[in-house]
């Protein structure tokens, strides 16, 4: 909101202040998905008050913290104009690699975890180099990497979960020092705040928007787009690795199915939150709200007791409706206002 108020100072100092201010608030990019989220939470709560029970909230936040960690990276990468379909496989691969390092190779746990992160960042580096230097479309490269990663998981584990893991891993997974949530949540929150700050307030972040928005311009003004893209790929790889290892800690086992299917979930979440698939637009807050929204829906449908067969249908419908709501908001609230240019929501998204 701070940002919204800031904008008041300039240009027009006319009357209609409250209405304008309201319109401006509604014009903020994240408001669409936030609104949808609030509607959904209210609906589920009315249907079944247990939806807002501490435990359910905690369970939702826990899952969101895993996917959310990846979503942070994916949002950055999407802003930079690329995307990564291999995140699920990278999460799984890093988890089983670090698990193997701490069991089969008996490395100290911190080293093994570092190894996991390096695997993730390394895969990201490869993705980035291939996309940027060899000009292979990200879709192909990261889909290929998804297959490669899934294959490597099988090679590393031979199909068996890596189990048992050293007790300290279980301790990490079982910790619950913040509102019953543990390390993964804390990491998620700090990473999200940092990433949001970087994207909104730093030269690095704005250059990332330029890179994704129009690489031609970015090059003209001397932004090294190759570095930015490779860096974003590495970030998403490292964050996927961290998310994978948190899941591993949570399960106390290096299971081969960690991360399976996440690639589409993560992208779906951030896109629902208004991050553009085509680069250069979207915010961290939006992307993460989108991920939260999808988790709220999945969980809420179970809580209110929707038949399993219909749950998936409802998820699909709600996903589309949430984005539809956002589009309606833009069309009516913003286009109809006298105070805001038609594309204002993107302004704020990008500011």
């Amino acid at each position, binding site marked *: 909101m701070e940002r919204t108020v800031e904008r008041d100072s300039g240009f027009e100092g006319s009357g209609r202040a409250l209405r304008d201010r309201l319109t401006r608030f509604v014009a903020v990019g994240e408001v669409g998905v936030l609104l949808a989220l609030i509607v959904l939470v209210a609906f589920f709560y009315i249907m*079944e008050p247990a939806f807002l029970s501490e435990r359910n909230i905690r*369970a939702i936040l826990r*899952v969101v913290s895993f996917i959310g960690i990846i979503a942070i990276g994916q949002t950055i990468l999407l802003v930079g104009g690329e995307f990564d379909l291999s995140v699920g496989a990278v999460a799984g691969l890093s988890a089983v690699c670090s698990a193997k390092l701490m069991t089969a190779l008996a490395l100290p746990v911190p080293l093994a975890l570092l190894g996991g992160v390096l695997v993730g960042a390394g895969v990201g580096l490869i993705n980035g180099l291939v996309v940027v230097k060899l000009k292979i479309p990200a879709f192909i490269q990261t889909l290929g990497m998804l297959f490669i990663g899934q294959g490597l998981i099988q090679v590393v584990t031979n*199909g068996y*979960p890596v189990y048992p893991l050293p007790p300290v891993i279980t301790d990490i997974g079982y910790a619950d020092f913040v509102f019953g949530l543990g390390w993964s949540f804390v990491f998620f929150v700090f990473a999200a705040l940092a990433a949001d700050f970087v994207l909104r307030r730093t030269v690095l972040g704005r250059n990332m928007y330029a890179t994704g928005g129009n690489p031609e311009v970015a090059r003209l003004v001397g932004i090294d787009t190759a570095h930015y893209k490779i860096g974003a790929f590495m970030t998403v790889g490292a964050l996927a690795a961290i998310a994978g290892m948190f899941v591993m800690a949570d399960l106390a086992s290096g299971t*081969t199915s960690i991360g399976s299917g996440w690639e589409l979930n993560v992208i779906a979440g951030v896109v629902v939150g208004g991050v553009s698939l085509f680069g250069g637009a979207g915010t961290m807050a939006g992307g993460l709200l989108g991920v939260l929204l999808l988790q709220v829906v999945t*969980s809420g449908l179970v*809580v209110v007791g929707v038949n399993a067969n219909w749950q998936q249908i409802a998820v699909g419908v709600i996903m589309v409706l949430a984005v539809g709501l956002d589009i309606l908001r833009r069309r009516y609230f913003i286009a109809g206002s006298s105070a805001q240019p038609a594309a204002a929501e993107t302004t704020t998204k990008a500011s």
Partner: protein
Amino acid sequence: MTDAGVAAGKNILWVQPMRDHPVHRLMQAGFLNKCKELGNNCEVVGNPSATNYDVPGSIPLAEAAMARTKFDAIAVYGPGPEIYPFIGKLGKEGFPVVTWHVLPPEGSVPGLKAATGEDIPSAGKAAALSMGEKLGGKGVIALTQGSSNDTENVMSDSFRKTMAEKYPDIKILETQMEGFEPSAAEGKAVALLQGNPDVVAAFSTTGNGAQTWSGAARKAERPLVIIGMDYIRQNLDIVKSGAAYGVVAQPLYEESALTAQLANDLAEGKEVAYMNPLPASVITAADLEPYYKMLDSAGQ
């Protein structure tokens, strides 16, 4: 894995869609170990995925292997009718075909020479009886499957049926789908517990179920009587620690080994019985030792 032509033994093919599913991998291990032990050349084909059960995608891979190697017997994973035409085709071409995990009645699948596997309805029944007794005949049970497939459907149905017959006071909630990604499954289970404060027990027909439910019970701080599937080490540990009540000891490893044996016998021209059911009992904390031993000896 393929050393066709090197060893002198029989060539045996194992066709299993969704090849990388952890439970499928366990079956493949049982097969490969036994098969080698018998001195055969063994090969596994199937679409490489842990989530997509893609039969049309797996058949060409089997055909590719058959184009190269003359197999003496073929084992085809057969949980549903979609694979029957393929079995029929193989039968017509003269391959002896064995299936496992489900036991289609003799003659119902053209071309099928033998079948082995747990008797799924009886496994579901055993789970129901064991849980009903533990609950003292009353309470609400949550029931989850990994996905909707024949094996799990049949297991759930028989669980429900037995419960309704033997413990009519027990209520079972509608079936929910866990999926195969562990953290998402756990989130769903917690949501289910929140929406249903009276749940006191959970039965899951998928291999991850014991982990899913024990994790959910811990996070929701709700003591539950949990029965899951499969005696992998982590599940045994969970039962041992008391976080779950028991697991259905699906004889995954044994049935696969038996499949290898049956295929070998058929390849050698021996007569085998068509039906080869295996017991699937519910094991609880008291029965764990032999299973740990079995895992130790399998090097897991």
